[in-house]
């Protein structure tokens, strides 16, 4: 009937189609990725627990309780402040006839492009003990400082100012997507504008507001740069202190484990709130939401929007520009510190490339071949979200110092840190792009004579390229800005731009810090611009 050799060839075909063309290499790669991403955290938790009695005594220490209280208080205050800053502009910019609201919407997310440690630094130059305000007050004859940015309140002020766009974005998108018929129904039922807002609009916004608030809270828990510059004592600064000045890895590990636990609780709350958010996102046809005329409220609304933007964008940038003094000093910083720039660029580029490759693989496997392996893989790649930079740095140090000491103390550690911390962004970029690609396209290619791999290369890859590129740039930007992990993982003398900014701020070299900050902002703004261009191309293709 069928000759032996033909049968064997066709059997290989069956085997290939059953595991969908991704055989042993896929399994090996999956195991390696899970090992790479999960082992540092697992090792950290083990070393925290093996401390046993000592760990217990650390936890029960009274200063620990105040540390927890301080950290949660900071995060809570920052979240409240971000809500105050983000909620009114969200409504004003989406639902009123405010002049220039499109431009303001675009500018409103700019604070996300300014790392909070740069924001903290600019506010120190303004409100610090020897900042402008105090100096001006003293020259006018006052005695002692009248404002002091250092401490809990200053920390919350700065963190809220530079994270409120999370809330602005979440709430705006919910406001844009909400069904206008709901508000019309409320109006038909006899409610006025205030009644509609309180009884219909706001309750529908609550899930998005909560989701945005949790993002801010998570960020505040994990921040190291701004908090350390503003001299607030939180988990991240305490971990850094234990590790860098007291060289007590055991203490640092226990602190990190508790911080991871806190973060995990918030993440679970976030997952729950995102799950419930779905009912708001249902669009009511193609009709846009009702736009309210502002009338005599126009001027207050404009003032409110510009005050928020002023405090978070215009003022910091103006302060940075002023601190530099002259363009010559910017050029001087650029030439004198070109190797910081180079260190930042190449580590971020290598990390972004590695993350994009792994992210594409993980996203493809979990999306096209659904199953427990895919699920495990995506969860493993998402771990970076749960780990603050300080904790990630510590866990990598603990792991590699013990098991791979020849990697420890090289730039590879820095790249590994970026890779693990920002892999979720690359996975999401690839996953979003893959979700846009109709799986029928691959089948169409197969029916036109292409193998699994050929279909992937000729159809899927060209279509997802913009999404993968966007993911690459997101990882690149985040890596360029990462401070805490870099501080812990860098080899001696390996400075990057954020490390330079942080050190210069501490050493009160304000001109140097400002120039380096402007370079960093300029470099990270360019890829952001490119991403928005890529999005336009991608939406045209699909």
């Amino acid at each position, binding site marked *: 009937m069928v000759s032996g050799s033909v049968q064997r060839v066709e059997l290989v075909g*069956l085997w290939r*189609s059953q595991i969908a063309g991704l055989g042993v290499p896929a399994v090996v790669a999956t195991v390696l990725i899970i090992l790479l991403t999960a082992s540092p955290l697992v090792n950290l938790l083990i070393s925290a627990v093996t401390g046993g009695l000592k760990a217990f005594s650390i936890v029960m220490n009274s200063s620990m309780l105040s540390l927890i209280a301080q950290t949660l208080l900071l995060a809570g205050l920052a979240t409240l402040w971000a809500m105050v800053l983000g909620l009114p502009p969200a409504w004003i910019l989406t639902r009123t006839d405010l002049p220039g609201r499109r431009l303001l919407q675009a500018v409103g997310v700019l604070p996300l492009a300014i790392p909070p440690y740069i924001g903290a630094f600019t506010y120190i130059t303004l409100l610090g003990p020897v900042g402008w305000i105090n100096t001006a007050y003293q020259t006018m004859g006052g005695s002692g400082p009248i404002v002091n940015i250092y401490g809990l309140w200053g920390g919350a002020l700065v963190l809220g100012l530079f994270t409120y766009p999370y809330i602005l974005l979440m709430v705006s998108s919910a406001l844009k997507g909400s069904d206008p018929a709901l508000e019309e129904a409320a109006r038909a039922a006899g409610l006025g504008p205030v009644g509609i807002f309180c009884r219909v609009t706001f309750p529908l916004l609550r899930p998005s507001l909560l989701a945005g608030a949790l993002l801010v809270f998570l960020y505040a828990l994990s921040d190291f740069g701004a908090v350390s510059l503003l001299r607030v004592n939180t988990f991240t600064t305490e971990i850094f202190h234990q590790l860098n000045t007291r060289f007590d890895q055991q203490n640092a590990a226990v602190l990190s484990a508790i911080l991871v636990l806190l973060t995990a609780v918030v993440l679970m709350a976030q997952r729950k709130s995102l799950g419930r958010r779905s009912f708001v996102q249902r669009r009511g046809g193609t009709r846009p939401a009702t736009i309210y005329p502002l009338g005599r409220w126009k001027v207050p609304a404009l003032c409110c929007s510009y005050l928020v933007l002023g405090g978070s964008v215009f003022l910091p940038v103006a302060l940075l520009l002023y601190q530099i003094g002259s363009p010559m000093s910017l050029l001087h910083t650029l030439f004198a510190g070109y190797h910081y720039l180079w260190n930042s660029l190449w580590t971020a580029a290598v990390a972004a490339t590695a993350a994009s490759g792994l992210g594409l693989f993980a996203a493809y496997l979990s999306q096209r071949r659904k199953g427990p392996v895919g699920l495990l893989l995506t969860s493993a790649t998402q771990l970076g979200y749960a780990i603050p930079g300080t904790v990630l740095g510590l866990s990598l140090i603990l792991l590699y110092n013990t098991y791979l000491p020849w990697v420890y103390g090289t730039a590879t550690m820095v790249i590994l840190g970026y890779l693990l911390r920002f892999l979720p962004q690359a996975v999401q970029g690839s996953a979003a792009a893959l979700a846009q690609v109709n799986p029928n396209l691959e089948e169409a290619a*197969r*029916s*036109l004579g292409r193998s699994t791999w050929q279909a992937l290369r000729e159809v899927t890859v060209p279509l997802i390229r913009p999404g993968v590129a966007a993911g690459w740039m997101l990882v690149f930007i985040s890596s360029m800005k990462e401070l805490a992990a870099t501080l812990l993982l860098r080899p001696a003398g390996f400075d990057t731009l954020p490390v330079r900014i942080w050190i210069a701020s501490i050493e009160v070299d304000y001109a140097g810090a400002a120039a380096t900050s402007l370079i960093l902002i300029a470099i990270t703004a360019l890829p952001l611009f490119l991403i928005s261009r890529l999005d336009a191309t991608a939406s045209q293709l699909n």
Partner: protein
Amino acid sequence: MGNIAKKRIGEIAVAGTNIIPLEQTSSPRPMVIRLDRVSKHYGGDTIAAVENISFSVEQGEILVLLGPSGCGKTTTLRLIAGFEAPDGGRIEIAGRTVACDNIFLPPEQRGVGMVFQDYALFPHLTVQENVAFGLRHVSAEQQRSRIAEALDLVGLSTLHRRYPYELSGGQQQRVALARALAPSPQVVLLDEPFSNLDADMRAQIREDVHSILHQAGTTAIFVTHDQEEAFVIADRVGVLNRGCLEQLDHPEAIYHTPATRFIAGFVGSADFVPGLVQGERITTELGTFPNQQGLSVGRAVELMIRPDDIDLVPDEASEATVLTRQFRGADNLYCVRLPSGRKIHSNQGSTKFIEPGTRVSIQANPTHVVCFDIDGLSQ
């Protein structure tokens, strides 16, 4: 359940006078597709997606697989294309076994063209590049002429430089067809190809596709849930229900002499009235009908009555009453209550009005007497 299903396979038949086993419908034309007791279960599911399906398709024939959603028609198509591997049975394409117990040929080696429900045109390639996608192993010269030929066939020669998103739904549909036809496949498989088109375009495009396929002399298997579409396009129709092929025949036979009660109800509308076999006649409350199949005396059966077969005449003496009238433009659909309380439907001309409440006498004139046993099989 399983037993009944297996029994049906042997009984795939034209109901009524002649019962022809499948194997004897052979003609001089060669078979392009042959499925032999093909089954497919999805992981963990106890109900089969496809159960013991057997059929063959001749060179140049257009076969339509018709059935409700979830009946296994798309799975059958994917099994032929090679996107799924069968759990049992054998699939042959042009005399070559492409799937059986220890053989599985991947889709790219089967020589099968596929037109997807959503067309699946490559969005990053132009019309011309889409059509060229399956023409890798031919010379550039030949490639050009084959592309021109395929685009000419579907009437899109002037649009070859456009991208898919610049085309209308109907144009995309035709590009998908041209792309599938260009490599001259053994068979073209079309998965609900018209369901994404607007209703007013559908009839026209259906006709175009039909004539394109005939012109190209291509063997084709369509999948659809729309019986009208099936009847217009098909040389033969196979009706699937719960993974089983219940009847495979010409469209006329499917409509007039359905093999199972399911088909009678699914294809066109029908009422069923109980009857009793009494020698040469079958008596029902609508009157007596000839016992054409020679059923044994005393059997209880159900007679299929199509609304077209019922005539209504106003008659004060009758006990049947008109309940409702639905004016549908080209005709009127009446619902009539019989003395027993049973309801029956009748199609009358566009201008024949009878007020609800009117007593009518009923005349049933079925062209074929189709009756079913209690288990739903045709007798």
